[in-house]
């Protein structure tokens, strides 16, 4: 098995892909947002309950590739209890990490996605859930997509 491949599909990612956490709808959620990459087939919906500016609880449902599912699953763990500003900082750090391999700040467990940058076609899978949560926090109602062109 090549090193690049085990960088992409780290054990943590394979685990979250097979056993996604917080994988259900959230009763009484205050906010939700959809992410859809129709060309890929990645589709997910995030649900948030808020306590003021802070995410009290978060969950997701959907289907897609291993990278997109694991990314959403790990995002729900990382974002729970965080404020909007903290999530925005995480978004910036994760975005930079999956495109360059270097995180711009503290990303904790999300560091497992650093290997994605070697697979340019898969960046949009890793970042989809992050665009969805930004959209949910802004209160946008349109589904987001991270696809800009056909593969």
């Amino acid at each position, binding site marked *: 098995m090549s090193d690049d491949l085990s960088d992409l*599909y780290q054990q943590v990612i394979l685990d979250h892909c*097979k056993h996604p956490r917080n994988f259900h709808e959230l009763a009484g959620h205050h906010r939700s947002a959809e992410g859809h990459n129709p060309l890929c*087939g990645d589709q997910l919906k995030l649900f948030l309950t808020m306590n003021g500016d802070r995410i009290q609880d978060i969950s997701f449902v959907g289907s897609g*590739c291993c990278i997109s599912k694991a990314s959403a699953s790990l995002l729900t763990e990382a974002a729970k209890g965080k404020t909007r500003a903290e999530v925005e900082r995480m978004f910036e750090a994760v975005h930079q990490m999956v495109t360059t391999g270097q995180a711009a700040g503290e990303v904790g467990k999300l560091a497992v996605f650093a290997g994605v940058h070697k697979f340019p076609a898969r960046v949009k899978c890793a970042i989809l859930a992050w665009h969805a949560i930004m959209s949910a926090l802004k209160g946008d109602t349109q589904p987001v997509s991270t696809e800009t062109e056909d593969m």
Partner: protein
Amino acid sequence: MSQPAPLTPQTAAASAAEAGPDWNALRADFPILHQQVHNRPLLYLDNAATTQKPRAVIQALQRYYERDNANVHRGIHELSNRATAAFESARARAARFLNARSPEEIVFTRGTTEGINLVAATWGAQNVKAGDIILLTEMEHHSNLVPWQLLAARTGARLRHLPVTGDAGLLDLSHLDEWLGSGVKLLALTHISNSLGTINPVAEICARARKAGVTTLVDAAQSAGHRPVDVQEIGCDFLALSGHKMCGPTGIGVLYGRQELLETLPPYQGGGEMILSVEYHTSTWKHAPHRFEAGTPDISGAVGLAAAMDYLDAIGRTHIARHDQELGAYAYARLAEFKEGIRLFGPRIGRAGLVSFLLRGVHAHDVVTVADQWGVALRGGHHCTQPLMRKLGVESTARASFYFYNTPAEIDRLVEVLREIQKFFGL
């Protein structure tokens, strides 16, 4: 009882011809196949997207640019004469390749997509009115759906789609005659499905359409380089193909149109090459096919495409078709060994040389990403057939598509790699 004939060199040669070409030896004609990808030998199984190019085609391009390059149809000098002769002899070559009645029935395009758009823009503008029906099928590539949607939006025509029967992927033709008789102006369908591998009985379907007075267009993108394609035998009015899917360069394709029909059509684009005389306010155009070829054409592309046609015919398209179907059948049988672990799409028997599948529990893009690391080039996605994918209830599939330089041993290798992928994802 007669004695068996003594074995002479002639009969030995005949039986060798019967056995077909040495497919492994032909691989030597394709420089690109002999390389490592991610430190493993390349296994190229994305031929429905584009095929690789033999040295004969690459050399034809190089020879053209090194000796003959000039603009066509306008120069008086030697190089322009040579370039014009090369371009027009490529047109004649394409006519022979498709058994068209004359080179005037051959329009050079950028590929299948442009060929279909050309028909929609010219024939469609002249013949399709509000309320008319354009009949397509549920297995069409986006390139044989979207141009007709644009035409329908412009004219108020309606679209109907012949249904596909589930995962087996055959066209349901039981209501064809009935549908053809109810206001259909044009029937446009694919010869071979790029996502199912279905080979449609286009000659029979075109005969039924002709009887109903319906104009026909065949999308031969997946068939032209894989089997004999004879426009007179098929009996279609239009047929479109792409050079790059049949050993030719990218950016060149052919639209065949029945001459009587082509002559009646308005121009496609305006510009140089397509005119007889131009005033500031009006112009007159050339006859078909030149009327449809505005601007400097892809001369080297046409030269390369003619070389590709020579190359394919030297092998024999009947041989290629048989090899294709053997690979398709073998791949289907080997993949069926995964039993519950795989979902296979398209017909079990009589399929073209491609197989679409889903490994249970692994998304198609994960399959393709991991396979690539093993040196195996597959395609994962909707294969430009989103409505068909929706009908099959999937977002995407993985696809292995073959050409004559692929071998059963490579299919065995694909199966090994898919087993590794199952292990990798803990299945």
